[in-house]
């Protein structure tokens, strides 16, 4: 186990290293003049440009720049915004809690929806209920989250004159207002995730229900309910963890879109604003942050496997 953990951690670090090189060099080859972005005007004199280049360190060799940047990032210094000159990490960290909260709420919503659907579908395999639920989940998979989000804004207002409160409230200061602002985007984002989760819960339950230990549990006279809930369900949840790890990236992308629709001040809005303004120090910081979190979550999912399922042995 220990060698496996070390190997996985090292691979993840390697992946993050390569990602940082890709992000860093991609930003450097962008067509367009950095000086024009910094000064927000196309007319830049060579003197001004020289001053800006030396201020940003762009006149240094690329490799020096890279190590200087990575060194800074490891100390929590992502540089300054090209345009507002504000510290990138300060601006980003203010926006992280909202994106994290939205991700967690969507996941909770998706699980609440997916688990009963998947389990019922598996227990009643090939019945009308199963077909109905399978058709429903494949339908959900096809609905774009941003369209669902839009519909959740438009139709409650049209029919009941209901709209979520305007002006963002922090969860620690005003939890009710905060949750009222976040539950609609969380539903919109969670639906697609619930569909793919429900499909994995179903297939995984079906596989577990065919195992010998389930037959044993039935043979010793347990009620079907006990067999499904106590014996089958817990084991069936293992593959669901992997899928969740793979879907976190999709969730992150979803938060970008939904924050934009619901005008929420999270990392998604920050990313879009940075891309539109071509503020590349912000763009590279936020892409690196998303990638780091994603790689770390997948590492945790892989490592937790051995803990959840002791049958798995690593060589």
């Amino acid at each position, binding site marked *: 186990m220990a060698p496996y953990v070390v190997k996985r951690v090292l*691979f993840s670090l*390697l*992946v*993050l290293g*390569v*990602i940082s090189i*890709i*992000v860093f060099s*991609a*930003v450097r*080859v*962008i*067509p367009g003049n950095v000086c024009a972005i910094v000064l927000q005007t196309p007319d830049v004199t060579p003197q001004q440009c020289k001053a800006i280049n030396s201020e940003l360190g762009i006149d240094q060799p690329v490799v020096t720049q890279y190590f200087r940047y990575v060194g800074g990032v490891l100390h929590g210094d992502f540089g300054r915004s090209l345009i507002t000159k504000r510290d990138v990490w300060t601006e980003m960290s203010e926006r992280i809690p909202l994106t994290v909260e939205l991700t967690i709420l969507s996941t909770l919503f998706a699980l609440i929806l997916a688990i009963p659907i998947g389990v019922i579908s598996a227990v009643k395999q090939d019945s009308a209920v199963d077909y109905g639920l399978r*058709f429903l989940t*494949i*339908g959900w*998979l*096809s*609905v*774009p989250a*941003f*369209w669902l989000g*839009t*519909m959740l*804004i*438009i*139709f409650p*207002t*049209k029919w009941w004159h209901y709209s979520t409160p305007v002006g963002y409230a922090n969860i620690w200061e005003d939890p009710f207002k905060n949750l009222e602002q976040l539950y609609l985007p969380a539903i919109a984002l969670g639906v697609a995730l619930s569909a793919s989760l429900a*499909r*994995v819960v179903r*297939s995984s339950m079906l596989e577990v229900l065919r195992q010998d230990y389930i037959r044993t549990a039935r043979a010793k006279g347990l009620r079907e309910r006990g067999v499904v809930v106590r014996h089958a369900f817990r084991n069936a949840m293992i593959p669901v963890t992997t899928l969740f790890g*793979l879907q*976190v*990236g*999709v969730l*992150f*992308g*979803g938060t*970008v*879109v939904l924050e*934009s629709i619901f005008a929420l001040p999270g990392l998604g809005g920050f*990313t*879009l604003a940075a*891309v*539109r303004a*071509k503020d590349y120090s912000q*763009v590279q910081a*936020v*892409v690196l942050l*998303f*990638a780091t979190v*994603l*790689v770390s979550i*997948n590492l945790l999912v892989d490592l937790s496997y051995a803990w959840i399922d002791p049958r798995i042995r690593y060589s």
Partner: protein
Amino acid sequence: MATAAEATRPLVGGDIRRKRSPASKLWRVALKKPIGAISGVVCIFLILVAVFASQLAPHAVDATTFPRLQAPSGSFPFGTDNLFRDMFSRVIVGSRISLGVGFGAVFVGTALGTLLGLLGGYLGGWVDLLIGRVLDVMLGFPPLVFLIFFISIFSTKGGFSFKSYLLISLAIGIIIAPTTARIVRGSVLSIRNLQYIEAAQCVGNTTPRIMFRHVLPNVVAPIIVIASIQIGNAILAEAALSFLGLGIADATHPSWGTMLGETRGSWQVAWWTAFMPGLAISAAVLSFNLFGDALRDVLDPRLRQ
């Protein structure tokens, strides 16, 4: 299981299996998978709509001579938008970018993924390890964040052009490729030690020849299946990018996602401006998803999860 009577029947000369025409085979599959068959017909219909879009659209997509924000009615089935344009015509023509990018991206992703999976699976060793890490790096980016990043570097500004079309297809193809690569690699691993591969090696075939002439044809079924399942995802990815204003649409080349994003200011007063393009996206993705699902059951049931 064969019965005794079947087993003793002469193998040569007898009419063991009736030869069926391709049409009759297709019909039998369609009867077994009615939902898949219907969705297949819808997919073909959508493709035809995209091909003949300019003939089918009742009005020009950039004609601005209609009443503003009209609700859906007989003369404007999908209503009109905030810029005096007929939404029905725009949804019809919008199918071009959605399906075009969908197919283009899946083509790029499948080609790239197949190559990586084939190389890794067949050659094994350090090549496999290296390709595995490349895929890890690709999967380390959240897909939409990668797309936004890619588009911000290789700007697609300036509207629709062949170059911007290739660029967005390449971007979406890159995020599709890792899934294809993993599935192809798995399939290649399952056949690379079979006897006919060994035989091909023994008679002195070169490695590339074995890979492309002997291995590739035998993993075509899973490749077709995964490609058909990914079309829906590619359409969704293009729609999301366009919705955020990072797509390749312009005044004369509308896209469903752009239509939804552009009408933002009029959503509350005119629900159809958001509803209709989104409905088109969902309907297209749903029919490709259902078709892909049915195709998987028929061609390669092992992939079923």
